[in-house]
């Protein structure tokens, strides 16, 4: 577990350094994700069981990790109130459009691929 956590934090660390050094418009953890994925693909064998267990443990409790940031809404209650109308329209409508576009393109192209 400690080895796996060290590897994950190291990937994030290197990702963070790359993000700052190159001013890439990507968050450090996303670059870390790509680094780890590249390493796994280059080695081309099943990841270490310890890494799989630790990652699954972290991902299973993903929801918990969002909670402290979510509670931050308490500092933004006035912003939410002031923009209630814009948010109540923008969020559902854009979510529906995203679902429709992704589902439609994927359905069409997947069918073409199968036939």
């Amino acid at each position, binding site marked *: 577990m400690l080895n796996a956590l060290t590897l994950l934090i190291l990937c994030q660390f290197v990702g963070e350094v790359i993000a700052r050094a190159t001013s890439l418009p990507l968050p450090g953890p996303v670059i870390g994700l790509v680094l780890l994925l590249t390493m796994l693909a280059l080695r081309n064998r099943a990841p270490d069981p310890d890494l799989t267990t630790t990652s699954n443990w972290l991902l299973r409790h993903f929801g918990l990790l969002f909670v402290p940031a979510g509670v931050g809404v308490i500092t933004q209650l006035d912003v939410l109130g002031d923009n209630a109308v814009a948010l109540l329209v923008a969020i559902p409508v854009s979510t529906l459009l995203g679902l429709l576009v992704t589902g439609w393109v*994927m359905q069409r192209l997947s069918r073409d691929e199968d036939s």
Partner: protein
Amino acid sequence: MENLFHLWVYLETTPLLGLAATLVVWRLATLVAARMPGMALANPMLISVVILVALLLATGTPYSAYFQGAQYVHFLLGPATVALAIPMYANLRRIRRSARAILPALIAGSVVAAGSAMLIARLLGAPRVVILSLAPKSVTTPIAMGIAEQIGGQPSLAAVFVLLTGLCAIVLINPAMRLIRATDMRAQGLAAGMAGHGLATARMLLISETAGAFGGLAIGLNGITTAIVVPLLATFLVR
């Protein structure tokens, strides 16, 4: 009474209280959510946030004092995001096989979801910080917060928008898929993961394993796609 007051003053200044409260409330929220399966709003994260906000308001505790303890949980978002590489690697062969369908679907959805949210908010007069925090709302929280910070939004606002978006996606996915006659589980799963990240994907997993796998894939890929697309959109749509 005097002693109790001293105890409270002590607890307020240590990180222990915020950390313990987060973990205990999360435990309670998962128990509550488990007793209400199939209810979109019975989400442990939503329940936890509501309870903790109520507690902070009731005790007059400032968010900064709470976050002093909660930051230890918050910090794990980074390593957890990196850990998304593991399920993605497990699906790598499937990803390669349908790459020609997945990438156009994700890029189109990502541009439309982020662009329409920013445009609508702008037309309805929302300020710059709100528009920029809305942009990454379809992405999983840690990535969304990172993107929001990067482009000048407010990470905690972005986290709230992500949560609301996930709840909307859960409610809208079935009517939306019927409307476009998307019967393919790969298409339904990808749409759920793209538009509604982990919340909608967890929901799809109850219906179909294939949908769940493609949803998980969409969460990771959309995180990367949106991180590249949104800063570009922001320069066009926000001045």
